[in-house]
């Protein structure tokens, strides 16, 4: 170990080490044994070791995220898979996303343990396990977002027969798993790329620092595969969906005009506008979440491979990891909590949660007068 320092600090530091161990400023990766030193890239060793308090704060953040993710995604899987009214093809994708998010959650106890040791437990093997979980859940989650966008587009643009059936849904789910495989298996087997510790050296991900052609191409490919393609699909399907909704609204308005619906003419306009705005809001939320979750990671890896590496301090590289974990915790809220039947089921099973949702079967199907009726208490009640 000592030899290792001398390389970096120079001969002057060596006597200081002898004086007092507290005075020595450890560099990153100091506590990783000799035989595993190869997994730590030289870039990290140029930074002083991260204080143990940083490790503890990170562990605390991850503990909170773990609980949130476990509760949110756990309830989603439990309710969507056990209640009859929610057993539809579209909801299979929501379950699939929750499974990916739960996989990402499994990473979290590993990190918490790593944080206490301040190095990856199990070194290369532990690192591989951590990175495989992250890679499958990250890439799978991204493409599932795109698949959900596709399913919604199909359902909304042709409400008669556009709906995906269960066989097609199962195939699409299998597709999301296959989609996450190449960039998981290849680096795990060190065929192309490899998994290495990053940031505080307690988390692991694919290698974006090694300065060779192989790694650079790998980073570019994974950027396109797991970020650019899903994002393009999400944008495409939601914009198509928005167009379809606008078209339907316009046709309905034309029909209303033919029947001289004038008593509600002004109201109608407001109502239809709000449908479009509502769609735009939901679509934008999903897009924004994707951007928030994965852009930091994309930025860090692309900078590591092609840009100014001095920007990538250990703390800076931990931010993307936290970002994508936060998004995996929010997912169930965005996809499931917006679902009226899910809310109704939640209200039925866990009344203490205080979800106030009427059973959609008892609420009238219309979207203008009748639905609001039931909410407004009047004198004669």
């Amino acid at each position, binding site marked *: 170990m000592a030899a290792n320092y001398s390389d970096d600090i120079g001969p002057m530091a060596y006597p200081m080490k002898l004086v007092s161990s507290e005075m020595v400023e450890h560099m990153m990766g100091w506590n990783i044994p000799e035989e595993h030193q190869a997994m730590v890239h030289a870039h990290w060793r140029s930074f002083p070791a991260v204080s143990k308090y940083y490790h503890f704060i990170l562990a605390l953040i991850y503990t909170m995220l773990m609980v949130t993710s476990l509760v949110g995604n756990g309830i989603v899987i439990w309710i969507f898979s056990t209640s009859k*009214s929610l057993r*539809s093809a*579209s909801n299979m994708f929501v379950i699939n996303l929750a499974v990916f998010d739960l996989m990402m959650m499994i990473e979290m106890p590993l990190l918490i343990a790593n944080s206490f040791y301040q190095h990856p437990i199990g070194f290369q093997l532990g690192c591989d396990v951590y990175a495989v979980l992250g890679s499958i859940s990250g890439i799978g989650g991204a493409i599932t977002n795109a698949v959900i966008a596709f399913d*919604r587009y199909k*359902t*909304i643009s*042709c*409400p*008669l*027969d556009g*709906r995906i059936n269960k066989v097609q849904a199962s195939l699409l789910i299998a597709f999301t798993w296959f989609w996450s495989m190449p960039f998981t298996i290849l680096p795990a087997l060190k065929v192309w790329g490899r998994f290495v510790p990053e940031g505080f050296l307690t988390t692991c991900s694919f290698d974006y620092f090694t300065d060779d052609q192989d790694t650079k191409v790998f980073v570019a490919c994974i950027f396109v595969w797991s970020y650019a393609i899903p994002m393009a699909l999400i944008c495409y399907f939601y914009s198509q*969906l928005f167009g379809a*909704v606008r*078209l*339907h609204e316009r*046709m*309905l308005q034309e*029909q*209303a005009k*033919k*029947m*001289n*619906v004038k*008593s*509600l003419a002004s109201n*109608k306009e407001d109502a239809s506008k709000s*449908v479009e705005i*509502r*769609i735009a809001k*939901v*679509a934008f939320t999903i897009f924004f979440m994707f951007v928030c979750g994965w852009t930091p990671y994309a930025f860090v890896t692309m900078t590591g491979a092609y840009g100014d590496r001095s920007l990538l301090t250990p703390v800076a590289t931990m931010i993307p990891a936290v970002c994508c974990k936060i998004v995996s915790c929010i997912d169930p809220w965005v996809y499931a909590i*917006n*679902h*009226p*039947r899910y809310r109704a089921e939640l209200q039925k099973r866990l009344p203490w949660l205080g979800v106030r949702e009427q059973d*959609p*079967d008892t609420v009238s*199907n*219309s*979207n*203008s*007068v*009748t639905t*609001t*009726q*039931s909410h*407004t*208490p*009047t004198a*004669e*009640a």
Partner: protein
Amino acid sequence: MLDLLSLVLVVAVKVFKKTTPNGKVTVYLGKRDFIDHVDYCDPIDGVVVVDTEYLKGRKVYSQLVTTYRFGREEDEVMGVKFSKEMVIGQEQVVPMINSKMELTPVQEKLLKKLGPNAFPFTFSFPEMSPSSVTLQPSEEDQGKPMGVEYCVRTYVAESEDQKSHKRSSVTLAIKKLQHAPASRGRRLPSSLVSKGFTFSNGKISLEVTLDKEIYYHGEKIAANLIVSNNSRKSVRNIRCMVVQHVEITMINSQFSRHVASLESREGCPVTPGASLSKTFYLVPLARSNKDVRGVALDGHLKEDDVNLASSTLVCEGKCPADAIGIVVSYSVRVKLNCGTLGGELVTDVPFKLLHPAEGTVERQRFNAMKKMQSIERHRYENSLYTNEEEDNIVFEDFARLRMNEPE
């Protein structure tokens, strides 16, 4: 004694009524099926009886509402609703605004019978409004069926724009239907097509002629086929079917369903040089398509005697493409199978499927038949009567409303 009883039954007028959950407002309608005669449409005439003390200065409003549903309720995501409700008529019923309003005979009788607390109201369907159609849901579909529905909603409120309350409002589902014109027309729809083959000379020709242009529900359709084979291929078998074309204009999509079909090898193969003349008989019925999703029906599902949706008629001078809502049309499709390499020869002959017009002999026969079914059903229902509050108008109060002329 028996004669007297039957006399009372004949004179009695059936009236449908429904009361608000709090029991203060009752709506009476003379019928629930309103006929669109293409050039004019039956008005919706009803009477509201209200406890005036209960109102305390508030007013009673009535609305004619149409609801389009063009997608399954359970597929609604992202806040999109696959249904649209449109108020196509609104009227203040109590206090009456137009006291010189022309009353229909039913309204006059009801007003006389129900006393000073009864107020009439009349709506007319907008000229272009679509007919009621229900698309048959599949077994696993939950929620309301797709289609075009109408209802009359009556509620108590301070002003027109104020929201009504469930306890003081009542909704009666009604249907708007189209009946055939009095004369069926003399034109016999027919189609003549022929088919040549890439690698051999000669053609197979097929002529299909129907025996009528307008059929009534339940009637047998006779399709006369003349196949003459001047090619070297032979016709293996013949398929003949009734196709229902459904166009859902609000989302610009369409589909078709085979509501009756027949396949025959009789007289087949039609060898080169031979010809075949044959008549196929088909009866398109709703009850033989009970498990087919998307088949268009005339109105409600709960009725046993529900029939296939009638063809949509467009009044003269209007383009059929202008029709809105759900547009239904029918054709007889004949397919000749000319072997694996020969392919198929297909032709479509359009026809109309409707209810007989009021006042014709066919109508009387049809009504008699329907009455028989209805009586049977009534007996059955009474034997295991369940009080379905949700069901809109099945409430028929015979005893109190036997409105024979002054006693």
